[in-house]
């Protein structure tokens, strides 16, 4: 059975009919239908979302232990084993957060097609829609749908306002999420990069998509993200996020407020808007003090040009260093 047929028959066509039926129920407004659909889809995905949120909370709870592991083991394999062991013992699935996103993604793609097909901007697409509708009077009679919603034409490309809403809501959601994950010394540079990228690139990517896709899709994504933020806030809390942290540090200083308004400092996170550390060695993976064989060397480096007198141990001789000739 070709995948296109399965996609159309079991996802796209039912979704088209659901949207048309919702529009018929919602006074012919496609915009309200999209909002209702968003609420329904989030409600259906709620168990999965709840699981994710619980998983996030557990990660938050075990973060001190995670930090301990990061400090204790320098061998990446050992560290990874211990981390996974901790996850297992705590009943945490580190990939659990991806569930709702993965489930939502096909819906997002299908919804794009559904909006494109249902709003039917060309006469050909109206005619083509006939084959996709179920043989029920209230569905058949609902076409054409009213595509104007709150001064937004849902069949036109998303405007600046909608794009800004999508960007802001996605950024906020990412910001709250990243504020919850254990940061500071436990994060590797890769993780920090990944977080920074998630914080800015995901909203940017979706905003671009909203700008070039029908506005109906932007409406879905914006409303879905806002619901996600509310759920996250209700069930897990805002993490280290405060509204004050949205104000740039420069402005806060000028206003005479505390430079750090966040609940806890986030020195390792460069993309969090003003909380980045100015000391790369601190909060870096190199700050570990108990690494066998290389700890002192790293401590030396951290000291920069301070005298070496404090160190009483002999110079470490790792295998890597012994390869170089002495003197």
């Amino acid at each position, binding site marked *: 059975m070709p995948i296109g047929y399965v996609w159309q028959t079991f996802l796209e066509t039912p979704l088209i009919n659901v949207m048309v039926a919702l529009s018929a129920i919602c006074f012919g407004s496609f915009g309200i239908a999209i909002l209702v659909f968003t609420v329904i889809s989030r409600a259906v995905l709620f168990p999965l979302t709840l699981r994710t949120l619980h998983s996030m909370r557990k990660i938050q709870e075990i973060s001190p232990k995670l930090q301990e592991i990061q400090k204790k083991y320098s061998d990446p394999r050992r560290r990874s084993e211990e981390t996974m062991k901790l996850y297992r013992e705590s009943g945490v699935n580190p990939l659990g957060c991806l569930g709702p996103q993965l489930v939502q993604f096909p819906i997002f793609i299908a919804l794009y097609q559904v909006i494109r097909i249902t709003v039917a901007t060309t006469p050909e697409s109206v005619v083509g829609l006939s084959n996709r509708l179920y043989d029920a009077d209230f569905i058949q009679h609902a076409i*054409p749908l009213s595509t104007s919603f709150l001064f937004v034409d849902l069949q036109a490309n998303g405007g600046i306002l909608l794009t800004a809403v999508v960007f802001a809501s996605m950024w906020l959601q990412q910001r709250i999420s990243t504020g919850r994950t254990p940061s500071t010394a436990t994060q590797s540079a*890769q993780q920090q990069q990944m977080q920074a990228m998630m914080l800015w690139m995901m909203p940017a990517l979706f905003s671009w998509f909203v700008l070039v896709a029908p506005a109906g899709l932007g409406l879905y994504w914006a409303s879905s993200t806002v619901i996600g933020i509310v759920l996250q806030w209700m069930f897990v809390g805002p993490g280290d996020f405060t509204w004050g942290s949205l104000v740039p540090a420069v402005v806060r200083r000028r206003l005479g407020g505390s430079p750090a308004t966040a609940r806890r400092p986030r020195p390792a996170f460069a993309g969090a808007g003003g909380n980045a550390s100015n000391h790369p060695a601190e909060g870096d993976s190199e700050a570990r003090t108990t690494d066998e064989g290389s700890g002192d060397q790293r401590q030396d480096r951290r000291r920069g040009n301070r005298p070496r007198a404090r160190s009483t141990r002999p110079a470490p001789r790792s295998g890597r260093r012994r390869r170089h000739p*002495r003197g």
Partner: protein
Amino acid sequence: MSPDAQPWRPSPVAPHAAGARTGFHRESRSVFHVKHRTHRRLRLRRGATLALLPFLLLLALLSGCTHGLEAPAGWAAPVSDGQQVYVQLQPGVLSAVRIAEGTVQQRWRYPADGDKIKLTAIYGRPIVSGGTVFVAAHSGHVVALDAATGRPLESWRGGPVDLQAHIVATPAFDGSRLYVATDRGDLFAVDAGSGASTRLMAGDGRVWSGVAHRDGVLYLGNLDRRTIRAVDAQTGALRWEQTLSGAALADLQLDGSALIVGSLDRAVQALDTAADGKERWRFGGDGWFAATPLVAEGAVFAATLRGSVYAVDPVSGEQRWQFHRDDLTVRARPALASGVLVVIGRKGDVFGLDPATGTPRWHQTLTDVRIEADPLLHNGALLLVTTKGELVRVAPDSGTVSRLGAAG
């Protein structure tokens, strides 16, 4: 420490290694740092690449989604002035062709190579009058072309008229003015001689069904408002408005004082134009009536997108017969020629039916085609045009099909 050791200078690669005291330490530490930093950079680079991969994948997926948007192609019906046939063979391009001995010869095309105008698509049937061809295109342009040369009329000093809105509906023509309804619902009168345009009515919804005109009154079907309006052709004043339960997509047909409307609520209705559009009768079918109903031989023939063709009594609205095929979807208007009702399916199924009983006389299948445009009765045969710009000749009495190909 070696006595001849040079004072240490910070390495440009590892400036933070300035605390070294010996040459050995200096040497080995800076090498260590170079190596370590290189490794770190490599790790960061690898991390950045790994982080970028999902985004690139997402970007590719989202970009893939934006493809496949259906561009307007147009379904303008071909028309003839007896010498040439004017037909859209590719979206947004009108061609004048001559058909002789099974071959198609193109005389001209508009826009021609070098013309800056882009018509996008043509839905409205061209109007031929006095050696001029009038075209209203989806781009919003209304053009008057010399039928002999295919060039825009010089008397239209401003060139093609741009109405700033998409045009789908076939305009009406009263001999001196074109009445053009737009996608926004505006109604314009365009002077056929000079090209001067006047807005008769401001719009509030899409008008896609062809404008009907009789005795100084224009009839418009509003898709979004689901209304039929009668408007004074001189002033644009509203005479009457009738709300339907479904939107009108097919062209409006006048039959005496009755206005026949096929709509998306799976109904054909007859409105009394003499009684402010009051409904005379309503006939319910099994699907949308996107094809313009044919009023001929004392019957209304209407086809649906769900495989049925109906013959309906024009006075009472009662069904006379029904012809049904599951895989038949009809957008093109049925045609009556040589005593045979020819029904053309979108996917290439062509049926010849007995207009009195609906009994099939013949059936032909054209492969690999899509037909949306109304057929043209030309030299005793029906001329069909496919969405790929292929012309097909169908003999109505025998059902013989000749694929003429594209214009040479």
